[in-house]
């Protein structure tokens, strides 16, 4: 009877592979627009004090995220307690920000640009600054064929650039594409554990996360971590407290610190805490090692547009 039950559950467990590889090449990209977006992404002129650029918190050397717990915004301000999520593969997130308040990259760019703790910019100043720059005037003219630069064009161009920020061809993607030797036995065991512990129920899809909102600490009654900007800030429903967008696990080995508030420095600890908080189990050290090994196979190639920089 025991074995019958096991088989039954087994069938349910492995119905299909729920992770998709990142495409090797991106289609439908306006290259000139993306390059303009890149220039804007790196330009601190977009912030009120002209010191903060998008790149200030989404650093290539930190794999599109920030290496510190709290990023520094304009005038040394900080968006505490939120940790900057990575911009890499952000196009595969179904919503943007930890609480999904932006529906797409363009909206995210605008909101971050307007946020008083981040760049504190307003439409008027932004347009004034860019329109007084001959360089931008000619660049925008070439892309949009317009003589006046609007904020909408700015965010549109940045979003276009961000769409190119994908990290394809990681070991695991190669494995998914059929290269069974791409993963070592250890890593394969890590993937098996990742699935059998149930991590995969939330971390699935192309971005291995980013496609649902889940509560942090299903098994914890009084969680002590600060809430920050959770789903509650969007819906104002009390059930949505401590609910966040499930973060992507791609390049997870490079995007420490972890969790919405960047409170967890090591990947092992993050795995452990996830088991405790959301699976109601203490994952043994040995298994954590396996899972970590698997997660490290999710590190992909540096986006093409940033190579050589």
């Amino acid at each position, binding site marked *: 009877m025991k074995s019958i*039950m096991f088989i039954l*559950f087994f069938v349910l*467990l*492995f119905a299909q592979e*729920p992770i998709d590889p990142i495409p090797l090449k991106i289609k439908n990209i306006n290259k000139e627009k993306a390059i303009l977006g890149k220039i804007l992404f790196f330009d601190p002129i977009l912030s009120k004090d002209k010191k903060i650029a998008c790149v200030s918190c989404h650093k290539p050397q930190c794999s599109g995220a920030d290496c510190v717990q709290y990023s520094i915004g304009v005038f040394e301000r900080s968006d505490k307690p939120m940790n900057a999520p990575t911009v890499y593969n952000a196009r*595969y997130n179904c919503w943007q920000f930890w609480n999904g308040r932006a529906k797409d990259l363009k909206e995210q760019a605008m909101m971050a640009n307007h946020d008083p703790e981040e760049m504190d910019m307003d439409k008027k100043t932004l347009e004034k600054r860019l329109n007084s720059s001959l360089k931008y005037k000619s660049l925008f003219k070439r892309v949009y064929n317009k003589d006046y630069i609007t904020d909408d064009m700015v965010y549109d161009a940045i979003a276009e650039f961000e769409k190119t920020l994908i990290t394809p061809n990681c070991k695991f993607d190669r494995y998914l594409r059929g290269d069974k030797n791409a993963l070592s036995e250890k890593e394969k065991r890590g993937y098996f554990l990742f699935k059998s512990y149930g991590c995969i129920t939330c971390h699935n899809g192309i971005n291995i996360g980013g496609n649902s909102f889940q509560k942090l600490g299903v098994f914890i009654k009084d969680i002590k971590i600060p809430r920050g900007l959770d789903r509650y800030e969007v819906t104002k429903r009390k059930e949505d407290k401590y609910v966040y967008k499930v973060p992507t696990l791609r390049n997870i080995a490079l995007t420490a610190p972890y969790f919405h508030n960047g409170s967890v420095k090591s990947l092992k600890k993050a795995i452990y805490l996830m088991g405790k908080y959301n699976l*109601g*189990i203490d994952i043994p050290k040995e298994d954590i090692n396996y899972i970590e090994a698997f997660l490290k196979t999710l590190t992909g190639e540096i986006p093409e547009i940033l190579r050589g920089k």
Partner: protein
Amino acid sequence: MKKLKNLSFKIYFLIIMGLIAIGVIISFSFYAKKYYFNSYSIMYNLNRLENAENRLNYNLLYSSLFLYYNNDKISKKINRIRALIEELESNEFFKSHYKDAYKDFLNYKKAFERKEDLIFEFMRYNLPIKNSLIYLANSLKFMKLDSTNIKYVMNVLSSIFLSKNTGDLVFLKEIGDLKELEKFKNSPDEYKKAFIRNLMIYIKYYPLYRKYLYEIINSSTYINLKSAFKKFKTTLNRDLELFKILSYILIIFIITLIGLLILVVLRLDEKIRDVYFLLEHDSLTGLKNRYKLNKDIKKIDTPAVILFNIDKFKNINDYFGSKIGDKLLNDVGNNLKNFFKNFDTSIELYRVGADDFAAVLDGKKYKDNELEKIAKKAIDMLEGEEFKYNKTTLNINLSAGISTKEPYLENADMALKQVKKDIKEKIKFFKKNLNNDIEKNIKKSKEIKEAIESNRIIPYYQPIFDKDKNIYKYEVLCRVIINESNIKSIYEYLDILKENKMYHKITQIILKYSLEKLKEFKDLNLSINLSVEDVLNRDVVNFIKKEFTKKDIANRVTFEILESEVENYEALKEFIKKMKKYGIKFAIDDFGSGYSNFSRVLKLDIDYLKIDGSLIKNIVEDKDSQLIVKTIISFAKSSNKKTVAEFVHSKEVFEMTKAMGVDYFQGYYLSEPKPNINL
């Protein structure tokens, strides 16, 4: 003209209506295109929305069924539906035109926003339940279980399995063996503790998971969307019906326009045919006209033209009125036409002038003499005809000119003029030298006009002798002084003078000179030439009445009237009758030259008959002339008239005529005309 104006108004009206129709068609098709494009895009999006809804539900059910699931599929569908909603919501045409459907669509949007929240909620219970299930299943491998434990664990697992697959909460109540539960909770085995934790999460979350799933599946989105779709279709069908009616109306309108257009074109065609007929036909006789002749003649390689003219038609018109004149023209035209029709159908007849009719023949078919024969036949036919109008009976004479050379009509006309000069001939063929006559005529006309104006018209007097060569009286002849050495007889100018209606001027001049002479010589008798035109001319008649009716003048005057000119019989008869009362005598000049009519002359109460010179000239040799002259003389004697012989140019002629019984003699043998009288 009014009808034509009306017609052109109709054409303008049609053009305007046509333009309106085109405008309506263009704007109609433009609107229809826009309408179809917009409606199609709305319908297409509504369809896609419906599909996306179905897919979303399918994905949700799928995700609830399987432990491992790619949640991208759900979130992507949500985002897709959102994008479609946004697109539809911002569609102004949808908003303004499909108001009912749009209202339902907005309801759908609201319902979907609610559904979206429900989905996020659902996913928050769905995924932890899966994790718990995974753990509960896996825990069998790790937990150390004895026989009582295993029964409990199997019980739990079967209840969970049944609840998950039946959706019935009843099975969860069966798990409630609290004793075992407490035992597990306090067990040193961490797996047993975790088993309980996960079980508790399952028990806590499952009812919520179930509730949200049902709520999502039964959400009103689908109903709202269906209703929006239905209302959209209702409006669409209504519009299509309207379009259909509109296009029917348009088609009827266009068909009507085309019908009207055809009608107008037909009427215009009729008018054009009328105009063409008028252009090429004579309205009086219905015969083809000069324009048509000029057109037709070009089609024939070697045409021949016979031009007929009614002699003295103007007089007929003057005496009987233009009504009868017109009738006569009509009859003559039709008689001629019928004549030619019966003769040769290829011959066409045209009316080319007031009393001019031209027959066009093929010159190849007929030789010149044949043409003359045809003309003669036609003239004989018409001259033999009596034209009766009420109480008036008319006989007519015709002349004809024939030409086979270009310009046909003009040449024929010239030949005809030649005929008119020569009384003996009725038909003349055009000859080259006729052309010179025209120039001569022009020159003569100029000469005579200048002569009249500069008083170079003078009288000559030729004595008329009796048998004993005594001067009986003088005939007043007219001479034109061209220059000092050249004095011409008026004879060669007669035609031109008559054509130009100047003859009466000459007569008046001669009458004046004659009167002077009569007054100068109380014993002088004068014979003066009068034409019929003169008799009809008021100025001449008045002058005669005033000056020549005086006692001492009238009985010394004789008026000579040309026999061939006598056609206006009644007027002349009247004149003669009146003048004879005063003692004026009358003579018929050139008697016997043409078709002398004794009985007519008889009625005129004439005193003298002047025998035509052509009969006298050759009388010595010509037996015929002798016979005619004899007849004339006997006729004169029996009717108590005196005879005068002209052209007596030799002694033989004088003696012979004297012997035959002529009363008076005139001619070069006796005396030539002289500018003065020597009594």
